[in-house]
């Protein structure tokens, strides 16, 4: 399982890549493995306001469906149009081509308290098996 050290994580298995006052969001390698083949991703609309810890989309796989919880507060500036055509990108490259959406952070670059480091997230998923 891959957990890139430069990213931030949530206990709900999203990752955040901080990029100045903006952030990219996706789901982790652990999450995509647990879900199985992703067949559809419902994303927030560009311009939508997202709130940390609130559901803002869903990932459908063969066996199950899971909410996507926004890890951050802000406004959605871009969504990954590619995964509408090819949801399997979320399985194949969860931290790269399988990213989900970008947010202009409400706090101007501050992440919410309680986000996990790569080490914390590894520890969490180890406990979960």
């Amino acid at each position: 399982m891959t957990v890139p050290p430069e990213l931030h994580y949530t206990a709900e298995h999203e990752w955040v890549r901080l990029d100045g006052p903006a952030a990219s969001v996706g789901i982790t390698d652990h999450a995509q493995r647990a879900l199985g083949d992703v067949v559809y991703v419902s994303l927030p609309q560009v311009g939508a306001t997202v709130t940390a810890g609130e559901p803002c989309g869903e990932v459908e796989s063969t066996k199950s469906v899971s909410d996507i919880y926004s890890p951050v507060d802000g406004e959605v500036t871009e969504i990954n149009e590619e995964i509408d055509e090819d949801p399997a990108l979320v399985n194949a490259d969860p931290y790269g081509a399988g990213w989900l959406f970008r947010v202009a952070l409400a706090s101007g670059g501050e992440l919410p308290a309680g986000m996990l480091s790569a080490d914390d997230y590894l520890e969490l998923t180890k406990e979960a098996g």
Partner: protein
Amino acid sequence: MSDPDAAGPRRTPLTAVHERLGAALTDFAGWLMPLRYTSETAEHNAVRTAAGLFDLSHMGEIAVTGPGAGEALDYALTGDLSGLAPGRARYTLICAPDGGVLDDLIVYRLGDEDFLVVANASNAARVHGELAERAAGRPAVVTDQTADYALIALQGPAAAAILAPLTDADLAALRYYAGHPATVDGRKVMLARTGYTGEDGFEIFARPDDAEPLWATLAEAGAGHGLVPAGLAARDTLRLEAGMALYGNELGPDITPFDAGLGRVVKFTKPGDFVGRDALARAAEAGPRRVLTGLAGESRRVPRHGYSVLWDGQPCGTVTSGAPSPTLGVPIALAYLEPEAAREAAEEATGAGAGTGRLAVDVRGRAEPARAVPLPFYRRPA
């Protein structure tokens, strides 16, 4: 039996193979089983186009033997098993006295006085207990042989070509729902042409010690044909596309065979009484209380087990199984609908009013349009 929770899920004779293959393992009905090896969609597609290899050793095998075995099964089950020819198999049900389904079964007649009952893993202990009770006082012996068998399924259009060079059985003469002793890779097995995928294929009942070498031989022989190991996730989407019921979803103690569209396996004409007969006769007379209906979703959001089905916005039934269909490329589902809604939905799907969007599934708070489609969703090319 020791407390299964204390020991963790049971391992099959092939669990170590799945671990070496890197499978995602899951606790299924108390057994540690492969959910998928790589991608369940790729495994599903391999079974539709080439072949897949499944470990089904969690299934329950119960032997019923003796001069009264056929009569005991006639009394215990809904089918006419004493009328089954040796070497043949039959899909049948075990019902409670009130007509509810306790399990769906395949019964193989291995000899005049020798039957093998294959039960779902989750029901194996219950089925064994019921069979023993229902056979009491007859010259028949009921034995749980689950631990004596490994069960490997080889399924898909390439299955016969893969198996033929490895077996002494004449596969051209081995019909669907037939099974008899044979050798595969020089090992004694019971070889049956049965399955749960909607494809041609075989189920191989082997000695546990033979399971690993058999699996290896089949995997090697099949590699050039596109054979891949396939897990329970692919098995579930394959059976759903084939319109086959799954116990716990489409079948259960509060569902009669007539609700499930399985009235044909209740044999009122067989000799003698059988458990559930009176209740089942009343259910047959009354007609189904709900109708098992195939649905195709018209959005990409997938109807899943337990979701409400809507007719003009009003609840009219419940989804029992649903998944994105790899073969059809749309979400599919089985659902129990109120008879009136099932009739209207079928008319809507075929008649002039097609696509009026009156039928929908409540997918987590949003009504997603669906249409009724004939079952099975998928039928293999002739």
